[in-house]
């Protein structure tokens, strides 16, 4: 796993965003802060002269590289916000959320962090390379930012006009037409909204996301966004509360939401709330293999684009291998010891390094 956060001893440091310019002869990272218009040095060594802006005595710099954008704080914390070498960069909008999903991998916090992250993201967008291929937007629930969410989308459209933008949202805000309309006005054809739908029966969806009325809002949200020409992806997390109605949900999607351009069915990440709700959620993927196959082959047969995320090839029926994607973000992806003997390891997405539990049925596939 890659360390996205570390800490050293701060010297003359105020909070700022810095971009790594180059690595000097002694292996220190020479960075530049546009807001301070000054150079900042990141070093593993002992503090040098005090007139520099330095964070010293950092345990390791190996996970930072040229072009990376880092947030540094007066207490010496360094957080990686953008990694040049990664295809999985995201803007983090907020820890707040209006849902409280049973299996949330990054549980919401009830903090008022909207202004703080908005400021950071406004700067970060301007510092990103203009030829960036992909950028995610995530939270919490990004649309909680309200009109400033639209402002961020406008900034992105201005500074990153050719970047594919993937936004993770529960879509509930789009039940209000004016929100969907405001997004249309941003006029960015590279935005894709990934919205989860966990059941075709309102009560199950509302229970899973722990929010009354969420199902109706999400469905209306899908329709409003489609009406305003937005690109949509539908996401389903596979667990004990969703597997039974999976074939019905697939049919519901085709009949009621056939305009979604991609459907992702995702294995559970065993972290965040999930361990706490393990009894309600956890099941071996082999136990839902039939339902998964029925849903995937139906959607595929009807001409919709389907992917399976986060599930290892050894846990899937071979008929579904062609739908499996290497979906786990690079910084939290790994393989188990067992995987080293597997003939398909190169095609497999591996497991979540962040998961505290993996399937007991992960087995190397012989040639």
């Amino acid at each position, binding site marked *: 796993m890659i360390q996205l956060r570390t800490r050293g001893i701060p010297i003359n440091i105020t909070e700022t965003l810095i971009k790594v310019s180059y690595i000097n002869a002694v292996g220190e990272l020479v960075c530049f802060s546009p807001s301070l218009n000054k150079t900042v040095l990141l070093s593993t060594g002992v503090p040098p002269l005090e007139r520099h802006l330095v964070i010293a005595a950092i345990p390791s710099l190996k996970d930072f590289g040229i072009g990376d954008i880092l947030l540094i704080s007066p207490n010496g914390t360094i957080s990686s916000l953008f990694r040049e070498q990664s295809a999985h960069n995201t803007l983090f909008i907020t820890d*707040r959320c209006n849902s*409280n999903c*049973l299996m949330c991998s990054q549980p*919401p916090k*009830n*903090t*008022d962090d909207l202004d703080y992250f908005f400021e950071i993201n406004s700067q970060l967008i301007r510092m990103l390379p203009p030829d960036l291929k992909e950028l995610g937007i995530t939270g919490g629930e990004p649309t909680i930012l309200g009109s400033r969410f639209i402002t961020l989308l406008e900034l992105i459209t201005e500074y990153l006009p050719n970047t594919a933008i993937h936004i993770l949202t529960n879509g509930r805000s789009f039940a209000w037409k004016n929100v969907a309309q405001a997004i249309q006005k941003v006029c960015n054809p590279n935005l894709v909204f990934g919205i989860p739908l966990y*059941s*075709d*029966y*309102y*009560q*199950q969806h*509302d*229970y899973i996301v*722990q929010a*009354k009325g969420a199902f*109706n809002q999400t*469905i*209306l949200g899908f*329709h409003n966004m489609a009406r305003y020409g937005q690109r949509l992806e539908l996401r389903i997390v596979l667990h004990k509360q969703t597997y039974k*109605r999976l074939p*019905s949900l697939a049919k*519901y999607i*085709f*009949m*009621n939401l*056939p305009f979604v351009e991609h459907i992702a069915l995702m294995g559970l990440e065993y972290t965040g709330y999930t361990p706490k*709700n393990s009894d309600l959620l956890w099941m071996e993927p082999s136990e839902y293999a039939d339902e998964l196959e029925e849903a995937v*082959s*139906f959607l595929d*047969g*009807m*001409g919709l684009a389907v992917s399976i995320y986060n599930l290892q090839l050894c846990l899937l029926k071979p008929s579904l291998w062609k739908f499996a994607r290497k979906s786990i973000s690079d910084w939290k992806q790994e393989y188990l010891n067992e995987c080293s003997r597997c003939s398909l390891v190169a095609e497999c997405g591996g497991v979540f390094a962040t998961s505290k539990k993996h399937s007991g049925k992960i087995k190397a596939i012989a040639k």
Partner: protein
Amino acid sequence: MELPIAKDFRKFKGPEFYEAEFSEYFLLPFKFHRINDEKEVLVNEVGDFLIVPIGTARRIASRDIQKDELLYEDLFANSFISNKPIPDLIDVLATRYRTKKSFLDDFTALHIFVVSLRCNHSCHYCQVSRVSENRQEFDISIEDLTSGIEHMFRSPSPSITMEFQGGEPLLAFDRVKFGVEYALKLNETFKKDITFVVCTNATVFTDEILEFCKEHQIIISTSLDGPEFLHNANRPKSGAKSYQMVIDGINRARNQLGEDQVSALMTTTSLSLEYPIEIIDNYIENGFSNIFLRPISPYGFALKNSKKNRYHTEKYLEFYKKGLKYIIELNKQGVFFVEDYTTIILKKILTPFPVSYVDLQSPAGMINNVVVFNYDGYVYATDESRMLAEQGDFTFRLGHVKDNYRSIFYGEKARFLSQYWSNESLAGCADCGLQSYCGADPVFHYAAQGDFEGYRPTSDFCIKNMEIIRHIFDLLDSDGKALMPIFNSWINNRPRYQ
């Protein structure tokens, strides 16, 4: 800073907390139909269905379904019942309904031009009168053809199909040529998406004709009734054997225009009824991947030759089922071969999309999606309407090609016919469980029963379609798991990958 509302919200609650509060569920509009000894199908207002045990509709109506039944969730999710008289997601239903009926959005697309009544065949089931090959007065005049094409461009539809029929339209190739060229000239201004189709018996191709077809990507639609003995019996041609000429014509057209530019239609006669398997095999041998097991229409010569053609609908249905069964078996063995009528109905049952098939839709295809410009300059509501006209019955004549567009397409005749073109408002259809998948056909009912509205219990249209749709549901119920991948491949017109 902790937000005040949050603490309680972050406490997990059980499923019961998320159940909507209401005492008794409300019914949304739905209908039902028995499909076999054990099952009935429930169909809601937008064509979504559930196959359930017989008696379920009664239980639903008696508010007998319990919340802990799996069926309860299915009924709720598929908009059969609701917690409110008007459900929260009514807008979604409205969008679904609008989508299903969106074949109406663009108005007339298919414009049929009968460029000549002359023909070199004398098929006993011919649905239009024909005359010998050399009587030019049965060709459309250039003046009328011009006016018809100008009307075609007045259609609001962004995509139009110009179909040449006859007789044998290629006996009046000069008219076809003029028609295509004039349409293309006008299209420089109108910029519509045009498809050209020639319905021909494929026995009169010349190099000039085929080169012209190639240049303008004209689709060839021809007639093939099955094996040689059957085809020649159905489609006699003086002085020659039709079958070999058609096969030669099909191959010649394929070579020059490309495989997918040539299609064939078969007509079922009394004789055909005995040979469903042979007909299908013949289509496969000749390189087709689809067939339309089409019943005969009660028009034109088809009615006069009653002995040969007035077989009972039941016999046709047997033929259809036998053929369909065989085709399904072929598909199970890995052959990609499609039955077109089943596919049209499957699209209506299994997809949320509009299915524009002019002979089975509501409102009917007449005027809304198709219009016919006859060789004599008169305009008819459908292809069948002009066949009646050849027998002296001008009921469905909308006007003359020289009349203005409004008076033809929105005139008194059109308005009169509109009373009978929606099955939602026809006696016997209005409450039929299969209504969403069926259509209205006032021309058929007028011709067969002398009544625009029609009398359902003895209507061949009704008996045929209800039984075919019921049969398809029966198949879905008894063998759905194996059939769905095959049916999906038909709907999407692409072979399954193995």
